[in-house]
């Protein structure tokens, strides 16, 4: 695990910035810089767009077997994140979930982004966003 890998995508990982192809409207997340991964436009013209902090679960799994430094059970979802402006297409992100259990998850469940330390790279914490079912939606405040 190397630091530079995480430095490269810091803007998206920490601030939910997506990149909209001005040719087809696809919102890349994480960032694609020169060619569009949907329409193939090359060179493509991408504009940074701020994504909303709430999205919906498109699909998910709950993983039980993972390398030692990732806690289990670990829910992972494909999350559709709309643009903060309400315009254009939503981005689609793979995201780890936190404070969320299988029983709370379904296709269509609303989740919100939370900033967390994911793991440490040597002695340095690597911070990024995870998703969680909003506390207000949880029955009886159960975690």
């Amino acid at each position: 695990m190397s630091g530079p890998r995480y430095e490269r995508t810091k803007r998206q990982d920490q601030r939910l910035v997506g990149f909209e192809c001005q040719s087809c409207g696809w919102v890349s997340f994480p960032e694609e810089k020169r060619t569009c991964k949907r329409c193939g436009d090359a060179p493509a013209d991408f504009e940074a767009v701020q994504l909303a902090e709430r999205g919906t679960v498109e699909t998910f799994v709950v993983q039980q077997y993972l390398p030692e430094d990732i806690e289990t059970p670990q829910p992972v979802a494909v999350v559709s994140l709309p643009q903060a402006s309400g315009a254009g297409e939503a981005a689609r992100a793979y995201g780890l979930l936190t404070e969320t259990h299988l029983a709370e998850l379904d296709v269509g469940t609303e989740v919100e982004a939370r900033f967390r330390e994911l793991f440490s790279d040597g002695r340095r914490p690597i911070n990024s966003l995870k998703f969680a079912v909003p506390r207000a939606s949880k029955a009886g405040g159960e975690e």
Partner: protein
Amino acid sequence: MTRDAYVVGSGIIEFGERYGDSFDDLLEAAYLDLLGSVDGLAPEDIDAAWYGTIDIAGEGSSGSALAHATGLFETPITRVENACATGSDAFRNASLAVQAGAADVALVIGAEKMLDDTAGLIGSAALERLWRGRGVTMPAYFGMRATRHMAEYGTTRDQIAEVSVKNHANGVKYPYAHQQFECSVEDVRNSPTVSYPLNLYDCCPVTDGACAVLLASEERAREFTDAPVRHAGWGLSADSFQRGSDLALTNFPATRQAAERAYERAGITAADVDVAEVHDCFSITELITYEDLGFCADGEGGAFVERATLDGDTPVNPSGGLLSKGHPIGATGVAQVAEIFEQLRGEAGDVQVDAPAVGLQHNIGIGRNATGAVSCVNVLERT
């Protein structure tokens, strides 16, 4: 100006945990089995070879590894690596050389030692990126399709499990399969959860193996056999690692593209396929592949499972598939071709289906960090 290429022989070893065998041992054994099973074949007949491996164990190396293991010195040998479609793409490349007239007799060998170093398998999938990939393993990528397929089409958990039940029922009749046991839907559902909604028996085992196939021009093919099998069509598609951020949550577009091209080249439709060996790395993969290959309409894969048994109208994975036979990546596609070859010649033993004329072989592979980035489909025809 091209000509047809024909499969004239195959050689295979038992798939399984082969800790006692080196990479060289696997290659050598598959090659010797091929030499012994094709009448009149001598090493000097082989003009060129294609070698499929992703070399997880770090022993596969270049074409020289195959030259060393087989004694095919001074032969042009090309190593092919194309994710889980490695074996089927090695076969395709060898066939293209025969079709182009660049080789009259071409060898294809796929091999993989999957158990020597499995850390890389899970590590690369699980740890690479914060968002796309951090904590996302192969069972997760495919499991996410299962979750969505159930939500969108009403596919049941039991229908997904039925794929594994079917393939294990076939695998106990197939002598080279790694996992020789039968299981019920309850067994699948009661096996440990790997990545909800998939359980252990929804996943293919980690398996060592090797397989060889021999291709020849029509003229040379007749020297070796009276029943060569024609390579009638192929399709290959390399999609983006994250084409439009995985817009297809319930299917694999690369398979659809590869199948369409293979059908067009072969001049057939999905309805003409009599037997198929498809990529069932997970039970859900095969179920979705029925739809991607056009065996049934979108959303009907769950119901189609019962028609894919050995005595069904479109038998799928008579060899037990990856779920039972195992998935030594470089060997997988070659072994699927070998099984279709035997099926079309009526030599498939206890898993023989009823007189097939057209057979299909399919792989789908994952790119760096996404599902279904590469797919290869080959169509074979009885002559």
